[in-house]
């Protein structure tokens, strides 16, 4: 594990949103969207992050990119801590980190032509001259499988899948090293979804990209990732190599999540683990292990003490008292 080169290291990252209340709109509490998350991303790999809505996975992606300012913690990208850098100092690093968003309808400006959308980041970063920029636009359109004529059209003339290709082309203009995909295929139909997933894999190979792939769909994440992290209420419940997580999940939440996915296979009926109740509010998470209110294996200690991520061998880490020995 250690021979591999780390591209990104996130240490004890926290992102709290204040909850305002009362007549004076004072801060009365915090939503702990991301609450002490640490992980590494190695060069050339895809780290998948799965979780249900409210787990904090999108906030995590946005905070790592510094689209949101972290409350606490470090974001070390190629040895440099980005967490506290100010705008101007941060700008050179922005080139290296790009994002592909979920909604291909909301993330492209309807008044800009596709050529302008893809060209804009180059203008902001003062790259190339006008002619070179146009060449680059055409080149990128080709890479994502769109014809050169697309550059003079507007987003509404394209289907969802094509728009997502445009979003990917825009993310690649800066030759980034690291791309975060926040639910990049969840708004697409399955036949189109597989086209975009295949495209992302091809581009990763061609441009030596490193991905952080955030999604709620466990099958999609399994397909594209090398390692997978499972989030619950702002914290990582489990993280490790894909095959360990899917074939030998240790955390009861991961086990329940995997068992709940409907599988298009009629010959194998799997045993389902039923979770009681719903996700508690992240503004008021349960004490101790935040999963204990729904956990089929919860015991006394889970209500009192918060488990830390502990290495279980072969790169698999789990935050659960079932795997720790009492001190």
């Amino acid at each position, binding site marked *: 594990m250690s021979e591999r080169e780390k591209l990104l290291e996130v240490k004890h990252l926290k992102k709290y949103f204040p909850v305002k209340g009362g007549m004076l709109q004072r801060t009365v509490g915090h939503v702990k969207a991301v609450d002490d998350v640490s992980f590494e991303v190695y060069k050339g790999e895809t780290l998948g992050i799965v979780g*249900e*809505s409210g787990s904090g996975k999108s906030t995590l992606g946005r905070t790592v990119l510094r689209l949101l300012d972290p409350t606490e913690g470090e974001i070390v990208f190629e040895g440099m801590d980005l967490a506290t850098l100010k705008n101007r100092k941060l700008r050179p690093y922005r080139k290296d980190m790009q994002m592909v968003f979920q909604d291909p309808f909301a993330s492209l400006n309807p008044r800009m032509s596709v050529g302008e959308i893809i060209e804009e980041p180059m203008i902001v970063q003062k790259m190339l001259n006008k002619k070179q920029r146009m060449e680059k636009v055409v080149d990128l359109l080709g890479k994502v499988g769109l014809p050169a004529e697309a550059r003079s059209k507007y987003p509404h003339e394209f*289907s969802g*899948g*094509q728009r997502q290709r445009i979003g990917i082309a825009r993310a690649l203009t800066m030759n980034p090293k690291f791309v975060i995909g926040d639910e990049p295929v969840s708004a697409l*139909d*399955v*036949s*189109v*979804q*597989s*086209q975009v*997933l*295949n495209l992302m*894999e091809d581009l990763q190979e061609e441009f030596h990209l490193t991905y952080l792939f955030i999604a*709620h*769909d*466990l*099958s*999609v994440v*399994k*397909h*594209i990732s090398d390692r997978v992290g499972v989030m619950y209420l702002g914290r990582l419940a489990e993280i490790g190599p894909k095959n360990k997580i*899917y074939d030998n999940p240790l955390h009861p939440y991961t086990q*329940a*999540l*995997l068992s*709940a*996915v*409907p*599988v*298009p*296979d*009629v*010959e194998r009926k799997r045993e*389902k683990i*039923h*979770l009681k109740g*719903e*996700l508690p509010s992240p503004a008021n998470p349960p004490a101790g292990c935040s999963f204990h209110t729904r956990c089929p294996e919860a015991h006394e200690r889970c209500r009192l003490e918060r488990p830390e991520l502990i290495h279980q061998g072969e790169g698999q880490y789990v935050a659960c008292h079932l795997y720790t020995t009492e001190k």
Partner: protein
Amino acid sequence: MQEQKLREQREKKFQDQQLLEVEGLKTYFYMEGGRVAKAVDGVDFTIKKGETLALVGESGSGKSITSLSIMRLIQSPPGKIVEGSIKLDGKDLLKLSDKEMRKVRGNDIGMIFQEPMTSLNPVFTIGNQISETLIKHKKMSKKEANRRAVDLLKLVGFPRAEQIVNEYPHQLSGGMRQRVMIAIAMSCDPKLLIADEPTTALDVTIQAQILDLMVEMKEKFESSILLITHDLGVVAEVADRVIVMYGGQIVEEASVYELFTNTKHPYTVGLLNSIPKLEGELERLESIPGTVPPAHRFPKGCRFAPRCKHAMEKCHESNPDLLETAPYHKVRCYLFEE
């Protein structure tokens, strides 16, 4: 021997008891500039009593318009049911007056939609919205209806139903709202439950709870379900029979087991192969090139032909018919015609 005969008899009886018969349904939308979108273009199917039928397709396949046509909720203009008949228990819904149709909705047909937030009224309490249906359709008194609302909420799994009746939709989570929708849909003991993407907006752990609840309710109330979904995993889990739609038409129809184990139509095959698998390892996903054609510009010939890797010359010239190529397995494809 005798046992087998009895079973055959029972099966025959089951087959005779059709609840819903849709024949030659065509729903068109008349758009600006004289264009006509043939959203549903000649659809026939039946649902038996106690059966769960899944209608599968991607966006633009016409699956939702089919279900809205059955409930006669097509906005007109621009939409219109131009042809066909929809018989529920032998009664043609398309021949009913608007007033008679309102009695059918809610009473004989219950509905659940995808977005539980927008299908509940934010300014009325949960109890109010459940009892409204009961007062209207079952002529219950307010008091009776309120009591029944609490019972229904208990039935769909709310432990503190007495409090929930006084709460408002915004106080509930997505999964809880969908439970309320199911309670409303089941309140008048409908013969048919139409569920349009009932779990698409929900997380997987909640989705599993809601799917189980739907099956449990179906059995308790002895109703049939028409499930509209794009998720083949959900289909494999709950459906008895499956219809795959593409370009406003049925392209394949079979029992759930047959469809997944003996898939025939190239579109269904492509759809199944483009889903990432939870078990096993796949290097590369198969994908279907191109996108679903818009309903006002269907290709001549087979509507899937431009995206089909098996397309032959005649596929581009004429549209194949939906034929029964094996017992209870229908396919619309020249590959399977004699």
